[in-house]
């Protein structure tokens, strides 16, 4: 297979981001502010973990070393994970979780639109399927951003703070490295400049409706595409990977 290593990396990025943010959302299970939101967040989490399963299974096939989706999810350490740093950030309050999800789902929405035309049949099918689910995620989180931003003084302040805190993690979504460039050139990957433009338009539009200020900070932290992460990922993995590491081969 041509460019096997790069395609493997590309699949890991897609799969790991969905897996990690899906796990983060699952932490809300039983803790949602109201029953409907508890159900909504776990539903979204389930979608994301389902998407991760497809992509990690495929990554294992591309790599050709007989690693299953479970091997990749449970038996790698943080430096081998390729999820975007925004996906591993702690939940904070409900407003911060919605903001993180809004930033990420909006990115996926425009990314997957392009990937439905990927020359890689599995990535195209993954994108076509996932896009239907992600559309619901964008709609749901946008409505919350508007409601919280244009809500009470307290909710406005907290959701603005969440946007400010998370802003520096949004840059790497659109920072193309040599893997992204090669995948774009070979018709497999997406044009991240275009995703950035579309993402910024929707974020501006929703923030305006929410009476929120789009953060102006220009410092963006990057590195997850090469395995650099914030300290939070290790703790997340410790919980997520505990069982299969303590009881190898466990099944039910």
């Amino acid at each position, binding site marked *: 297979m041509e460019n096997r290593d790069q395609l493997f990396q590309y699949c890991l990025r897609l799969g790991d981001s969905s897996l990690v943010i899906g796990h983060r959302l699952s932490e809300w299970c039983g803790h949602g502010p109201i029953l*409907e*939101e508890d*159900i*909504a967040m776990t*539903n*979204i*989490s*389930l*979608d*994301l*973990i*389902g*998407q991760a*399963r*497809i992509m990690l299974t495929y990554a294992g096939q591309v790599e050709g070393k007989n690693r299953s989706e479970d091997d990749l999810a449970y038996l790698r350490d943080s430096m081998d994970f390729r999820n975007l740093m925004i996906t591993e950030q702690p939940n904070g309050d409900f407003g911060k979780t919605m903001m993180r999800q809004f930033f990420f789902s909006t990115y996926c*929405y425009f990314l997957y*639109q392009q990937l439905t035309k990927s020359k890689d*049949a*599995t990535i*195209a*099918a*993954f994108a*076509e*399927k*996932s*896009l*239907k*689910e992600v*559309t*619901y995620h*964008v*709609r*749901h989180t*946008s409505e919350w951003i508007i409601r919280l931003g244009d809500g009470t003084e307290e909710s406005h302040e907290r959701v603005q703070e969440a946007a400010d805190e998370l802003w520096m993690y949004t840059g790497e979504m659109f920072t193309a490295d040599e893997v992204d460039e090669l995948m774009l050139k070979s018709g497999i990957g997406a044009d991240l400049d275009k995703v950035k433009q579309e993402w910024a338009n929707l974020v501006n539009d929703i923030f305006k409706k929410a009476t929120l200020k789009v953060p102006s900070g220009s410092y963006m932290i990057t590195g997850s595409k090469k395995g650099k992460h914030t300290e939070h990922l290790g703790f997340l993995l410790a919980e997520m990977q505990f069982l299969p590491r303590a009881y190898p081969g466990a099944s039910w």
Partner: protein
Amino acid sequence: MTGTLTREEVYRHLYEVFDPEVPVLSIVDLGIVRDVAVSDQMVEVFITPTYTGCPATKVIEDDITSKLKSEGITELKITTVLSPAWTTDWLTEEGRTRLREFGIAPPEGMADKNVLFGEPKKVHCPHCGSLNTLMKSQFGSTACKALYFCNDCVEPFDYFKCI
């Protein structure tokens, strides 16, 4: 060996496999059986998940296997296909009727093509038929359903959402 088995017979057997979460709805009416291939050596069933994370998918695979085994089909392969992605447009009329009888409002109209925002759909209450209903949450008891409320008969109900 599959002997003289035909594709139609396999479909007939599959018609008797039900969605574990909506046990009145056949997986054929639900539209997740995409194709069946019968050769001298084996039967291959092509299925597609409703949602990527749907936990019922594994149960459905197991149910297909045990149903077809009980019909004497020993050489069986189940293949998952992702494209074209499942849509509620594939729900049959029979399936829609069954859903309504079960108390779940069937999808209204055709699937929206990537419409991001807009008014929530007007949905008929499966209990009293009223259109005076309100969406409470886009996410319901399972991934495929939204939560609605009927202002006339004052009952909550699930809506099988259009995707």
